[in-house]
């Protein structure tokens, strides 16, 4: 089998249906671009989760009585709570924060707003045991075990806010994937259609090839390669789109967010680690679609 011959056939086929080829490449590119976007969102979320959950604390606020009278956590009630927390599974460390320390932190946080600081009194702030969990999912156990115990006011979990945030991000990711999937369906139908069209416009040639003894594989390889080419071209275009999207949109709009390290920065290495997946998915899915189309619809 001669490569130059097959490739000239592929080029002819793509040129002949140029509008379909362009449509096929563009839909594939959009679909793969969305898939890539979704994958990048997943990567970002994973990294955020790792970072955020390391920073969050579960806080056991102590009762007003303990807060006022036990500045060093030396009373039997407080030290018992502390000991039990430390020995609970999934707990990494427990730090006692007295009312004074809480007030000092409050002052630090709100130093930009003096009128708020003037209003505040240390008495308004409870002392607390701040618990660092090695496994954030253990929070419900801790909450159940310590809520309502003598000396405990309430147990709060900063992770709860994070979970809400991540639920929203998960929604964003899922929406991206759903749109990518719908686009992918359109891309598949277009590829299938183009392959059929290609095979139809060249049915005389294929008929003659078959009569002169060319194998089915040989006559259909050009059509298959056309689909493969479209898939790979779509993948490349999608990668270019992601890079452009990063430079023109993400970097500019989210600059402040990146600066504050609220969201981990999206790097080129992220895009390039997603790129081979897009190329591979594009090429393999397109070739598979082409193959099935030829098997099911084109009998020569």
């Amino acid at each position, binding site marked *: 089998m001669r490569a130059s011959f097959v490739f000239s056939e592929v080029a002819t086929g793509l040129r002949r249906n140029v509008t379909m080829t362009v449509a096929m490449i563009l839909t594939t590119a959009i679909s793969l671009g969305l898939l890539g976007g979704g994958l990048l969102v997943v990567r970002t979320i994973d990294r955020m989760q790792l970072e955020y959950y390391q920073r969050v604390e579960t806080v056991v606020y102590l009762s007003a009585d303990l807060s006022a009278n036990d500045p060093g956590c030396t009373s039997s009630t407080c030290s018992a709570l502390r000991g039990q927390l430390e020995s609970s599974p999934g707990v990494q460390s427990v730090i006692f924060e007295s009312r004074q320390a809480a007030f000092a932190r409050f002052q630090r946080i709100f130093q930009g707003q003096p009128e708020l600081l003037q209003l505040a009194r240390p008495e308004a702030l409870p002392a607390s045991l701040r618990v660092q969990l090695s496994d954030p999912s253990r929070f419900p156990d801790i909450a159940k075990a310590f809520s309502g115990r003598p000396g405990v006011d309430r147990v709060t979990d900063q992770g709860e806010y994070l979970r809400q945030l991540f639920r929203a991000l998960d929604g964003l990711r899922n929406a991206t994937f759903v749109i990518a999937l719908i686009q992918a369906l359109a891309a598949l139908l277009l590829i299938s259609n183009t392959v059929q069209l290609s095979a139809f416009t060249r049915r005389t*040639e294929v008929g003659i090839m078959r*009569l002169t003894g*060319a194998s089915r594989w040989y006559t259909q390889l050009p059509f298959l390669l056309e689909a493969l080419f479209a898939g790979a071209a779509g993948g490349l275009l999608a990668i270019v789109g992601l890079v452009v999207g990063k430079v023109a949109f993400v970097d500019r709009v989210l600059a402040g967010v990146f600066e504050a390290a609220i969201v981990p920065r999206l790097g080129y290495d992220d895009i390039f680690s997603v790129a081979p997946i897009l190329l591979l998915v594009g090429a393999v899915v397109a070739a598979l679609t082409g193959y099935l189309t030829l098997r099911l619809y084109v009998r020569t």
Partner: protein
Amino acid sequence: MTIEVEKGEFAFLIGPSGSGKSTLLRLLLREEVPSKGDVYVADLNVSKLSQRRIPQLRQRVGCVFQDFRLLGNKTVSENVAFALEVIGKPRHTIRKVVPEVLDLVGLGGKADRLPHELSGGEQQRVAIARAFVNRPLVLLADEPTGNLDRDISHEIMLLLERINRTGTTVLMATHDHAIVDSMRRRVVELHLGQVVRDESRGVYGVGR
């Protein structure tokens, strides 16, 4: 019905339209599969051939049609080379063999023409060159002179005879009385799918 054509023989298939001439040729090419019975080409059982092995059959059987079936966007030599390219012959072989065959069919000077620049007779010569270029065992011709006038038809027949003399079996379906009568070769007449006559040195028919 049973028909046997020996290696190297030249035989006509005649009969009215719908008598089964073309169907017989299509069976030999495995373009159709018989509902019963067997078809052999050399030692290949065509009717039991697997899809995958059909190309093997067709590389040993050349075929020519009334409507030439040339590729309009390829030159004469490209059309002939095509038959070798699709079966994966190396380029240097193609470059050597194609001009030889074009000389054989008398088109040596027209290698770079496109089919529409040629007369009907010349186009049929190209088709014959393409069918013959990889030296098939059998050449099947389905009314090859159907679109050609008398003189040109005669030239085409001379060409087929020449090919037959190289040892290639030729089986030709035709309606052309004059040709069959002048050649005096084996004639197999079909009617409604049955063999009604099989003569070794026949004419088209009595009383026509």
